[in-house]
């Protein structure tokens, strides 16, 4: 099941939350995440899909894994 890259990135950003009640705040996070990516036409537009790897093991039948690096920052209190 391929998921648009945006949805995967949002899930990753959402995951950068300190456990409730600890009083901690994540101010910055740097992630290195392997992703399986795919691009396809949808409604006449190219859509870029990106999901975490199916497995930690390498197999010829699994999609290629691409490395992604991202920096997430706390930009201010709303």
């Amino acid at each position, binding site marked *: 099941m391929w998921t648009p*890259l945006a949805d995967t990135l949002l899930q990753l950003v959402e995951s950068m939350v300190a456990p409730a009640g600890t009083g901690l705040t994540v101010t910055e996070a740097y992630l290195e995440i392997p*992703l399986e*990516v795919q*691009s*396809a036409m949808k409604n006449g537009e190219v859509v870029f899909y990106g999901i975490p790897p199916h497995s930690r093991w390498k197999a010829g039948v699994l999609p290629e894994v691409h490395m992604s690096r*991202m920096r997430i920052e706390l930009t201010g209190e709303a």
Partner: protein
Amino acid sequence: MVGDGGFLVEEFINAITSQLDRVQDSLRVKAVNRPLTYALKDLTLELKVFVDMDAQGNVRFRTSGPNESGSSVVHLGFTTITKPMIEENTISLATTRSASLEDLGLGPEDRQKLERVGVRNLAQLNRLGSSTGVQTIARLSDVSFDRLKQAIAMGRPQVHAVQPEPPPKPRPIPQAPPKAGPVFTPSRGPVFSPQQPPVIRVAPGVTKLNLRGANLMGEDGPASVRLNNRLLAVSEADNDQLAVHLPEQFESGALEVSLPDGNKVTYELSVMDGDQWAPNGDMS
């Protein structure tokens, strides 16, 4: 897309950018109801792709599939930039609204040759032409000189019509009185009439003038319109039409349209007195 699933590099990058925009928009929306706001500042992707070139000479990327070896690695870095940075690093919106090369009658091959020297529309063609000369563009792009001259001529700014908004009611055609007696028609000798600018009749309550034409958007913005040397504010501007506001108390006088290529078109704006358009031509 080509048969093997490859995409143009531009489409490929746009697809990723579009996904990143969605991330930022979603985070911004979520921030409305949340005490903390996060942003994705940077994203780097090391993409394993196969790079191909199609028959038209366009480079295409195809992401590597299962068990494929020999792929290239493309490092793409995305970062958030501010509005001033966007303005500094991109062409103006006015430029993008200029007539496309297709509108100028150039075929796909000529368009591609011009795009390779950074010309994607009329405004860019004119700018390069004015700095280096059309001959140089022809030599660099390998598009024939005559073809370029023809395209530039086709893209010359023109005003086809100027109409007040709301437009005046059509003037009733007066009935000719019945002829009484013989009519003497003097023979017409040579008449000298200096070329008069076209007259635009405008009722006193009119607030806007609509100009219709072609290539009215230049690189520095739309054509400008002056009434009695007073610049009129533009309310709407597009490549084929322009709307300008008339001042509250405007008077008859010269209406000058300065086109993006530097040429000027002059009209005579005539403010109608009283109710000229009353039935039976009653001017009272």
